[in-house]
């Protein structure tokens, strides 16, 4: 087997090792590669929050679990930080019970960081985490009619809505109360709940990268107004907020990961062609 032919049969262990090194190195020592802000997908979400008045209420949904935390976690935190900085009130629900607690922890982390920066926020006044409620999509339809009744009048922590001042303004999930919906989604149930039952609301998505092509038609048709596309979306939002964080740092790793895949594909094709030309059987 010639030198070039060997490229067609690289031991997977080298592939994994290369990937591990290239993903780890930029996390330890960021490269600071430039990030372009997407005007069609990211900016509409930033502008939506920017144009709201302090005291306006938005709804947000955690429809993901630990597997998507790497992409959707930084998105959620950047967006939530923006809301709290602007004085926009957020009511959180969760279509995935596996992500309910995860989302709450990330929100608490944001409020703690803001507290360190001197921005005081209060649970029950600035945000409420209603969390997951059993019943699937039908439950979300019920929330539109009587939010308190549908949620049994308690948040995820078991606090009564009576004790949460913000909830006094959220008797119904209607257009007068809700100035838009932000959905962080990694699958089903997710987008269809809102495009079906909340179709006349302004819906925005925080999406895992692999789902973006599938949801792009909703953006083009105007059914959703903006998408944070995977980790790049989170990084762009952090830059718009002028608070570069985890996503910006991880983007370097993602860049090198993509580059490694492309190098492998090129090498694999070189090996493939050399072997085919020399008459060696190729798989």
């Amino acid at each position: 087997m010639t030198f070039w032919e060997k490229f067609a049969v690289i031991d997977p262990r080298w592939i994994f090792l290369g990937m591990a090194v290239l993903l780890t190195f930029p996390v330890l020592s960021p490269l600071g590669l430039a990030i372009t802000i997407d005007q069609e997908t990211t900016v509409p979400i930033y502008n939506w929050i920017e144009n709201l008045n302090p005291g306006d209420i938005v709804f947000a949904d955690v429809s993901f679990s630990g597997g998507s935390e790497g992409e959707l976690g930084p998105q959620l935190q950047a967006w939530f930080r923006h809301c709290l900085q602007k004085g926009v009130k957020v009511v959180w629900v969760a279509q995935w019970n596996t992500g309910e607690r995860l989302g709450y922890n990330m929100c608490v982390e944001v409020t703690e960081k803001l507290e360190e920066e001197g921005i005081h926020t209060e649970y029950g006044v600035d945000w409420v985490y209603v969390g997951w409620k059993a019943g699937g999509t039908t439950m979300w339809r019920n929330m539109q009619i009587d939010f308190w009744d549908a949620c049994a009048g308690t948040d995820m922590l078991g606090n009564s809505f009576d004790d949460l001042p913000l909830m006094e303004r959220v008797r119904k999930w209607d257009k007068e109360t809700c100035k838009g919906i932000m959905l962080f989604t990694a699958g089903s149930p997710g987008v269809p709940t809102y495009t079906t039952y909340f179709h006349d609301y302004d819906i925005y998505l925080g999406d895992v990268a692999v789902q973006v092509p599938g949801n792009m038609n909703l953006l083009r048709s105007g059914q959703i107004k903006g998408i944070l596309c995977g980790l790049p979306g989170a990084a762009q939002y952090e830059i718009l907020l002028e608070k570069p964080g985890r996503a910006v740092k991880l983007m370097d790793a993602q860049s090198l990961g993509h580059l490694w895949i492309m190098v492998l594909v090129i090498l694999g094709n070189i090996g493939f062609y050399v072997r085919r030309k020399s008459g060696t059987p190729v798989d």
Partner: protein
Amino acid sequence: MVLTLIFAIIRCGFELIEPMLSWELAPGQTVFSRLSFSITFMTVMGLLMGLINLTRLHVNTIRRKRENWVYSIWLLFVLYGYAIVGLGWGPNGTTFNWIYEAVIVPLDSTMFSMLAFFIASAAYRAFRARNIEASILLVVAFIVMLGNVSIGEMIWSSSGWLGGFKGIKDWILAVPNVAHARALAIGIFLGAYAATLRVFLGLDKKYLGGTD
């Protein structure tokens, strides 16, 4: 067959005549609220059924010592152990949350993180330009990958000709991708309508155990 038609007609009625849903059956209780309660109840009962079914299946596996029966013990231990912790100390209890934060989330993240390695290996083995179709797929994949990350911006800037890799990637996502997604959606819905119509008209009876 008759029952199917009756249920189909009732269901169509609810779907098509929305005002009916707001009819008040009792003070504060509409047709919709009754129906939605039923659906919520059925969803919760579905979970219970799942629990019972899973338990039966794995208890049988353990009793008959089928292959990998030890894993069934582990599954039942985790399933009921976590449920007992949740029921005993509540879903906001320290132990319940510790298991979630220290075990479930890291395991979930680890499983998906491993995809990066498998995708690299799979892309290396599968992306071979064997013919023109595979070559097109390869080129598109390269453009989308580069258009998504900062390094693509370094190689061909979005302020340059055609908007760089990002510009072409955006066009691919916004035009060919959307066109195919809509075509697919329309195809699926037409197929679903056709299949439903066949059931409604009694042309398809296979699900009832018929032969045609």
